[in-house]
């Protein structure tokens, strides 16, 4: 019987092609959108983790409260000891210290007079030590427009926009003005080793990268850092694990009465990230839900039309002694076959496109200049195991559900009535 039905489906294109196309299209869109969306969200989260939040981040309690002002006076001290402790206690994590601070970048002319000046967003990292992973983490090599990476203390990377505006060339000297940890005036001169551009205003505006040792010296914060970032060594961000880690750490080291005691904050708690994560999770299930409803309605209608056109077939089958129940079941079976065919096709195409966009993202940097959120400009999809089923199962369900609704009208009718309708 199944063989017979399959033959019927394959031969009667008008009966099967439209539903197969509808299902395939819906499944394709679901799979692809899910990959695309997860890819973008994943990249956003990843980028935030790399540039600002880490998978977890340790600051003093007071700094954490006011972190948007980057208050140097509330920075962490004895960082070497802290990091040593962390490395020992949490060997699966990599710990790095950074200093963030605001300041003014001054470009002198040949006489040492100010030629141009602009706000600076200082990020001090382990920039020059040969085994530093920070350069890769921040993807600085790819961001370089002119010059090269610093290879010794006293060198800096500055924003290419800034460099162009004030005609700063590689090898020129620039002076960073600001304040020390204790509030006195600070200035420190660097040699520009290269210029960088990320294509994201949030990162590019006044960006200047220096080595943390230079920063500690300049800002009078020996063995200090504004934050220590922790990254899972062998895995991407997993909120449950980060939460467990932060809870245990804070219970042990974070003292409510001491505002200079450290506090660990996980990525999801960082500004806005909780929302992103929630969206990332809900978006896919919402899409799938809408898809099932829409597909079911479409397939209900095609099922109805198909059913009406096949009245004479059903009538003949009744006359041949097939039970109504059996006819209904076989229509569902047919729907299942159509659903499987359509969903397979849709999933294959969805995965194929996602794989392609995983390997070669689409560069939107031209359209997304001055982007105000931490978002990559190259959109990539990601292929996750869930994508093999995220479209497939709803596709099959919708087809069967749609036909069940359509077929039920037929199933409910009395045999005589059905048969009478066949004769007209």
């Amino acid at each position, binding site marked *: 019987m199944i063989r017979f039905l399959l033959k019927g489906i394959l031969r009667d294109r008008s009966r099967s092609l439209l539903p197969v196309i509808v299902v395939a299209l819906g499944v394709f869109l679901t799979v692809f959108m899910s990959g695309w969306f997860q890819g973008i969200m994943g990249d956003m989260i990843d980028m935030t983790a790399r540039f600002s939040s880490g998978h977890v981040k340790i600051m003093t309690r007071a700094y954490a409260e006011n972190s948007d002002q980057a208050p140097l006076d509330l920075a962490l001290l004895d960082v070497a000891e802290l990091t040593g402790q962390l490395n020992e206690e949490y060997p699966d994590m990599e710990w790095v210290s950074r200093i963030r601070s605001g300041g003014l970048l001054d470009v002198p002319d040949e006489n040492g007079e100010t030629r141009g000046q602009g706000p600076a967003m200082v990020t001090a990292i382990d920039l020059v030590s040969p085994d530093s992973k920070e350069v890769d983490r921040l993807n600085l090599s790819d961001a370089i427009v002119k010059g090269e990476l610093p290879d010794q203390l006293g060198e800096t990377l500055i924003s290419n926009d800034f460099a162009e505006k004030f005609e700063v060339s590689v090898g020129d000297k620039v002076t960073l003005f600001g304040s020390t940890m204790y509030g006195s005036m600070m200035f420190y001169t660097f040699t520009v080793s290269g210029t960088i551009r990320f294509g994201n205003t949030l990162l590019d505006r006044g960006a200047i990268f220096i080595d943390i040792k230079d920063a500690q010296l300049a800002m009078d914060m020996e063995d200090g850092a504004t934050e220590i970032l922790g990254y899972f060594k062998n895995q991407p961000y997993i909120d449950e694990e980060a939460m467990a880690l932060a809870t245990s750490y804070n219970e042990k080291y974070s003292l409510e009465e001491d505002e200079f005691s450290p506090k660990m904050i996980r990525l999801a708690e960082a500004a806005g990230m909780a929302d992103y994560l929630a969206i990332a999770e809900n978006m896919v299930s919402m899409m799938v839900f809408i898809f099932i409803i829409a597909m079911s309605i479409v397939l209900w209608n095609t099922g109805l039309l198909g059913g009406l056109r096949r009245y004479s077939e059903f009538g003949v089958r009744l006359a*041949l*002694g*097939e039970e109504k129940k059996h006819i209904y079941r076989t229509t569902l079976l047919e729907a299942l076959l159509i659903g499987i065919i359509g969903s397979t096709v849709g999933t294959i195409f969805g995965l194929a496109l996602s794989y392609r966009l995983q390997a070669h993202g689409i560069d939107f940097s031209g359209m997304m200049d001055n982007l105000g959120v931490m978002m990559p400009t190259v959109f990539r999809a990601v292929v996750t195991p869930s994508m093999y089923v995220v479209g497939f199962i709803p596709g099959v369900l919708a087809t069967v559900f749609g036909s069940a609704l359509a077929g039920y009208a037929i199933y409910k009718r009395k045999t005589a009535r059905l048969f009478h309708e066949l004769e007209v």
Partner: protein
Amino acid sequence: MKNGTIISIDKLIKQFPVGKSKFTALNGLTLNIERGEFMGLVGPSGSGKTTLLNIIGSLDTPSMGTVTVLDQSISSLSHKQSSRLRNRHIGFIFQTYNLLPVYTVYENVEFALLLQKLSASARKKAVMDALEWVGLTDKIKSKPAMLSGGECQRVAIARSMVKRPDIVLADEPTANLDSKNSHHILQTMKKLNKELNTTFIFATHDEKVMQYLNRKVSLEDGQIVKDEVIENSKN
């Protein structure tokens, strides 16, 4: 082969609801049909022929009175039992053939056997036999759309006969056929009637069909007005 009463109808009344009132399509019919008859229900359109065939075929039920087919009372059958009765014992032939367009001639005939648990080889033999009875063995791979009306009706006859039913119900089988094809299929059916002792019941107002009948029951307004045996009918 043993003969005897295969269908007995007693004071059959069939009413259809029409709006709030009822329309009486069959009004107190009493009739016995013997195995092996080649008989026809004749009468003008609307006289109740189709309604009676549908009840005999257990596609519909009596409103009052009893109809017994092969010792089973139609009104007491469950849906499952009536399906089984049709599947095993009754073949249908329709005015409009009602072949399944996506399947070949062979598959259309085979379809009738799919519900029975037959081995593939037994099924194949049955299908080929049936197609041979109607002279269509050279068209087994054709689709209905490629056949003439006469050929389609012959496929339908093969489909109704392939399971060797006790009773074949044929509702206006020649209405869409020209004279030559009508005679051809009637001769085919008459031959099967003789060879297999299958009971044929026609609903018709076609003179050509009447020439072949051994018995003619005339209906008017749901009542039998004449019941005549015809001695030397055409073969």
